[in-house]
Structures are given as C-alpha cells and as structure tokens.
C-alpha cells in the first residue's frame, strides 16, 4: 500500500513556517546565533526559534500553562493539518515525539521552589512527554490513537515510521506524525558535560568540526493512504517509500567506528523501498557536527554507496540539532527537495574529513533530478533510523 505525504509543517530557527524555512535554506541563511530569549550564564550559539512564548501563545490563542515544546508542536502540527477535518470514514491518529517534554516549565518551577515559598505548581503539570502530545492532539482535534515516541534524536523519524506502519497494517487511514523539542538548560548542560557542544558555529562533515549547536523546533507531516485521499482530495506532496531501524549495539552515546547500526538502518530502508542504492538522488544526513557522528556516518555512507556517494548534506548548520524534532524537520526538508528539485547546501564546510574524504553538497542546484531522498536520524542508545521519500 502506498503512503503519501499530504501535509507538512515546520517551525525552526530559520522560519516560522514551511515557506520561510525553504527560503532560508535556498539562500544559505543560518538561524544559529547567540540566544535572544533563552537565558544562559555564558554566550551560547543556539538554533533558537525567534519568538517568545508569549508571542506564540497569543498567535495560537491557547490556554496556559503550556510548555514551549507543546507550543512549537502545535504551530507545526496546525500547518501540516491545514484545513483537514475529522471524518467518521477516515480513521485518524497522531504520533508525536519529544526528548525534553515540558522540561522548560519544570526548570522554572524548580528554581522557584528553591528560592521562594510559593512556587507555581501548575508549571509541572506540563512536564510529561505524553502530555505534550495530548496537548497537540487536543488543539488539532484528534482523539483515538495518540502515541508518543521517545528514542532520543531518532524519535521524530521513528514517529514517521510508526505512522507509516499503522497505515500499512490498515489500523489507520491517516496520521499526523511529528516531533518537538525546545531549548532547556537541562540538555545544554548535558551536552556540555559530554564535551560535544561547540562554542563555534557547527561545521558538519568538516575535518575541524568540534561539536554540535543545539536547536529547537518542530516538524509535522500528514500521512494518508489512497482511501483517505479519495475522501480528503488532498494533493500528494511526496511519497514515503521506505524506512529502516537498527541498533548500533556499541555505546550509550557514541556511534561505532564501522557505522554498523547506521549501515543496517539504511540497508533496511532501501530494502523496504525496493530500490538500489544508486537510485538515491540526495541524502539529508544526521550530520550533527560532532567528531564521532560525522565520521561514523561517513563510514556508513561509504559502506552503502561505495565510491559513488550521492549528493549529501547536513542542514543542522541552519537549524542546530533539534533532537527529537530533527527527524521530522528534516523529513519536511526532504519533501521540499523533491517538490522543487533542489538540494540544500551544507554550510560552514571547508576541509573534508581525513579518514573518509567525502565532500558534502555546497549548492542548491542538483546535477540530476531529485527522485529519491534518504534522510538519516541517529539517536543516543544506538537507535538508528533511515527514511526514504520519493517524488509523488
């Protein structure tokens, strides 16, 4: 059964909607800069969404308390959902994903609790990962199948994979799949303690890369089967043709030197898609800019594609690493690449990694038609997922 993408929504450091993100990508405009709204003790480069919570709350007209993760998720989910309505004939669900949940509010509560006598208890009611999905579902008006995935940086991609499977298994006809994460002190301190947060602008796939910059945002996609499209009459934007997940079984936070988990995930996706590696036109890599990931991923790319690695880039030098949201934001970018027949430049690159000598895509104009896009998301715990999207 074919799975179609009929709606996309995204909010990130480079734009509040799909069009703005697309323009920034084409014009090589990064969204990574010192934080404007997020308060941190030292100057920090982040991929921040350039809106305060209050601005988003007013725009959406939602009630508080509400976490920033939910706010970003609602913006992207609404854009992807568009004018769709609930319909008894179309079995509908929502699968979202997050790693921080409502941690932003919980951090405010925790500080208040340490410093005052009357902390605002309502702030911790928004903490749970599942709670952020429920809130998004409520605002869109989806009841019934509601699920939350939490597998670190591959969460969003896994949400898409689960959604596709629910359609293929004939459990649902359409599903809103997404991921959302906001900046928190928790994750910043954590990545700094692992010594992989760079104090410079991230350089994916560059030999001098020093680490990642964190980002925030949300991406959502609407997946439909043919039966649902016959009723909704939505336009097919792209097709989800394959997916694969595998375990790296190597280390809690580092990827294996031989890229085994990444290789297996890509192989599984190609198998599911029923295409050869040579059919892939462009790859949106995980490409976090850490010494470890970019080398491991490069090795995996060479395992699959040998010496004919297709055009590839990381878009994380635009958005930062948006954790759970990254798989879904980058899937939206894959749809844009297919629709517009473009590739997105890998910013801030000058020297290839010595061990693998791969040079990423630096421009927008591809040398061939973009028919199949591969999108990688690799999470801590060795959870590796690859998606393949195809022209509709």
């Amino acid at each position, binding site marked *: 059964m074919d799975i179609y993408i009929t709606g996309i929504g995204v909010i990130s450091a480079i734009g509040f909607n799909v069009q703005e993100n697309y323009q920034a990508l084409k014009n090589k405009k990064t969204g990574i800069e010192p934080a404007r709204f997020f308060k941190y003790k030292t100057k920090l480069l982040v991929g921040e969404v350039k809106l305060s919570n209050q601005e988003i709350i007013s725009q959406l007209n939602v009630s508080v308390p509400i976490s920033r993760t939910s706010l970003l998720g609602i913006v992207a989910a609404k854009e992807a959902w568009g004018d769709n309505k609930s319909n008894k004939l179309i079995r509908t669900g929502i699968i979202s994903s997050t790693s921080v949940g409502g941690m932003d509010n919980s951090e405010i509560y925790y500080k208040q609790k340490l410093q005052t006598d009357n902390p605002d208890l309502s702030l911790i009611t928004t903490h749970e990962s599942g709670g952020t999905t429920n809130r998004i579902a409520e605002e869109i008006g989806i009841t019934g199948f509601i699920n939350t*995935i939490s597998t670190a940086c591959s969460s969003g991609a896994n949400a898409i994979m689960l959604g596709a499977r629910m359609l293929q298994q004939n459990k649902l006809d359409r599903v809103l799949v997404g991921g959302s994460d906001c900046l928190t002190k*928790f994750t910043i301190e954590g990545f*700094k303690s692992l010594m992989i947060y760079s104090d410079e602008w991230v350089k994916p796939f560059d030999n001098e890369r020093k680490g990642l910059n964190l980002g925030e945002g949300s991406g959502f996609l609407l997946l439909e089967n043919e039966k649902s499209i016959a009723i909704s009459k939505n336009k097919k934007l792209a097709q989800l043709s394959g997916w694969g997940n595998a375990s790296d*079984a190597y280390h809690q936070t580092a990827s294996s030197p031989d890229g085994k988990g990444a290789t297996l995930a890509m192989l599984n996706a190609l198998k599911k898609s029923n295409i050869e590696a040579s059919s892939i036109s462009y790859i949106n890599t995980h490409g976090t800019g850490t010494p470890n990931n970019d080398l491991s991923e490069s090795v995996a790319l060479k395992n699959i594609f040998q010496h004919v690695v297709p055009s590839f880039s990381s878009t994380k030098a635009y958005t930062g690493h948006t954790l759970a949201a990254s798989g879904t934001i980058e899937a939206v970018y894959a749809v844009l690449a297919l629709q517009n027949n473009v590739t997105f430049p890998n910013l801030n690159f000058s020297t290839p990694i010595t061990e693998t000598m791969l040079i990423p895509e630096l421009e927008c104009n591809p040398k061939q038609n973009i028919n199949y896009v591969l999108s990688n998301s690799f999470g801590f*715990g060795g959870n590796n997922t690859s998606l393949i999207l195809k022209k509709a």
Partner: protein
Amino acid sequence: MSYISTYCHISLNQCFVDGKQTHQFNSLSIDQFLKDLYTALSLDYPKFYKMDRLTKLAFIGTELLKKEHPEITMYNDNEIALLFGNNNSSALTDINFKESYQNGGSPSPSLFVYTLPNILLGEIAIRNKWYGENMFIVNENFDSVYFINYVNILLNKNAEAVFCGWLNVNDEMVEAFLFFVSKKDIIQLNLPFEKSKLIELYQENKL
C-alpha cells in the same frame, strides 16, 4: 500465530518467571534489591553498576529470562527486536541529573547519559550484540493493543522474535513486566500472543 514464549514480573524483592516465583529477597532498598538480584544471577558485567535504576531493571529482566531459558536467544544478531515502554520516561534520573548541577556543581555526564529512556535498549543491545530494531514508547498505561500491533509488524518484517517490556520506576517502587514473543513456541508454554492472554499475564501477580 505467534507465542509468548516466556515472561516475568519483577517488583521489590521478588521475581516471577512464567508465573512461578524464582527469587525472593529481604533487601532494605530498591537499589540493594537490584544489586542482590544481579549477584544472584551470577552476571559478570561491571557496567551494570553504572546504569540508572530504570536501565538496571530492564537489563536484569532480560538477563533473568535468558538465564531461565537460554534457548530464547538462539537467533541471528539482527533477528531479535526490542520494544519497551513506560509511563514516566526517565523522570527519576532527570531529577538526579538536574540536582548534579543545580547547586553549583558540574553536571554529571554519566547521569546525563541515562536521561533518555531508550538508553536501556542500547544497553541490552550492547550486552547481547543485537542489531535489530528497537523502540521505546511513553504511554499513560500498559497498552496491550499497541504491543500486539507493533510486535506483529516487526514479526512480519525482519524480526523472528521481540523482547518486550513495560517497566516503571520511581523513588519508591520498581515494577517490570517483560515478555518474549516469538514465531515458535520455544518453551511450549502454549501462550498465544493475543490481547486477552497478554492482559491476563500482565495482571498476574498484581497486588
């Protein structure tokens, strides 16, 4: 048709495998109980001591079932998938991590590692060198339908077996329900993998 080849329940100071009690302890704390169970299983895996409570519970649960029925792991390294879930993600460790830096200390990287619930999947995969699919879900309650659907999808694709777990930990309790679903009924317990049987086994031993 697939089968629940084996299953276990773990709660403070007791373990039940396939409905029969296998261990009982008088440990005075949850962390001591997990250590005592680790020792009782004669596992030579010092990395256990670095894991957080949720991960230790998942790890110990899988090792318990492997010990009782070694034959369940006779598969190729990419044929066993992992499907786990809980209702509060990594909340307990999140709090511990936050406390490590909140009052002026430096944030602990070894705690940060465990502030993602799916790390327990990684630890099981690393221990066993399993390269199959792995997924973690956060739900309010144990959802038998979710497990049935997802396991069936996995068994229809690359997996020959799925190690499943629903486990919850907090300050005051640990509770784990692990079950191993396979295409063949390995131990011949004759437990078909379907909704009513799964719910029945989940509710066994519940106080």
